[in-house]
């Protein structure tokens, strides 16, 4: 094996880091005080979309430990029970990896549909876990608004991710 130059390796590392970097940067920016109406609810939506997309199209850049760290970050930024989103995002990651063979060749509309199903399922699970751990029945409406946001925002996020996937995150260009 020929030894690669430093710049080559730096380039490869940067491309490798794009998925995790996009998750961290997005979670940070969504915390800023923009005064949007349902801003706090967008953070899990964004994390779920990121993990879904990158697990599907670039799983080598998003190994399980990175998914777990993203989940912990999401829990610490919000007030959800520590580790809950780490667990849920890992379940999503595992689910997408299991379906990857069937999903990857499909068109955008089908992937969108599958993502909507995954996202709604996860938000229901999150609601269940928080209700259980809080020993209280929490309002159901955030589950609906979050699922709605997830369905509506996925195309925009996917357009952004696809550009990154072909450009900045493309490991084969390094």
């Amino acid at each position, binding site marked *: 094996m020929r030894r690669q130059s430093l710049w080559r390796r730096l380039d490869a590392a940067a491309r490798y880091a794009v998925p995790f970097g996009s998750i961290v940067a997005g979670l*940070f920016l969504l*915390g800023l005080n923009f005064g949007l109406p349902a801003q706090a609810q967008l953070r899990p939506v964004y994390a779920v979309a990121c993990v879904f997309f990158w697990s599907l199209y670039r799983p080598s850049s998003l190994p399980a*430990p990175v998914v777990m760290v993203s989940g*912990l*970050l999401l829990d*610490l*930024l919000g*007030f959800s*029970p520590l580790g809950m989103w780490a667990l849920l995002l890992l379940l999503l990651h595992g689910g997408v990896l299991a379906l990857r063979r069937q999903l990857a060749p499909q068109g955008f509309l089908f992937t969108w549909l599958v993502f909507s199903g995954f996202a709604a399922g996860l938000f229901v699970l999150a609601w269940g876990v928080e209700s259980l751990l809080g020993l209280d029945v929490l309002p159901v409406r*955030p589950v609906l608004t979050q699922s709605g946001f997830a369905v509506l925002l996925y195309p925009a996020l996917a357009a952004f991710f696809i550009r990154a996937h072909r450009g900045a995150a493309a490991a084969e260009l390094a």
Partner: protein
Amino acid sequence: MIRLSVPFRQAVSRLTFPVMLMLSFGVVLIGRADQGISGELRTGLDDVLAPVYGVFAAPIQAAESGTGAIGHLFSLSAENAQLRAENAKLLQWQAVAMALEAQNDALKATLNYTPADAPAFFTGDVVADLGGVYDRSVLVVLPRAASPVPLIGAVAMDGRGVAGRVVEAGSRSARVLLITDINSRIPVALGTNGAPALMTGTNGPTPALLYWAPGQPPAEGAMVLTSAVGGAFPPGLPVGVVHYNAQNDPVVLPLADLDSLRLLRLFSYPDNLPVLTPIAHTKAKPAAIAHHRKK
């Protein structure tokens, strides 16, 4: 780089996922068993992030606070006229306030009233909106000199009314749980006779009123003040106004502008926490608590 055999590497990559899954399940259990750990981690992360958020929040605030001097020039005369009218009205109110102050002083003198000590307070910038799906909270950057007083439990007010209270505080940042949060329960006094009730957050913009005396429903438009029942809040801080919503349930319209908080004053009343307050007591106060019990 360490060279590993191919089967070993495959085994590791296959094992990563279940191991991580079990690890995060363990984290959930640990977080459940010791609530302090997640609080400490959160405070540590907040302290690291608060200055960064401060840097990013500055341009947003600048953009919000107007388009600069030239933008103001266009609306100058209209604003001037409006301010003159307001000023005239305020001068009348000033006279009323002065008369009432004099009357108040006279009444206090006859009652031999001793005023309570003014609480320590300081002002912090709200830099981030770090709530969750079921939580309403904001992150406040603390000024450097703020640390000596215990901050957890401090009452946060904006210019007009109570906005919430501090639930987690580090050396540079504090998280304020807003009164609209679903976990927020605040004993309040309604109207001029101070009828007791409990204000509970609903995650919506208007907290609900519970446990008011059955014979005396809260009156529309009555002032809602904090009450000292339970000892968690000092009495008499303005919270909001009673309003009946479309379901004919009494709710509170908060005075504080909770959707766009920019500055918060944090008042700490150090000896005010009763033993059973459901927030963490700082370790520095066993003496104060014992003192409380004796009474």
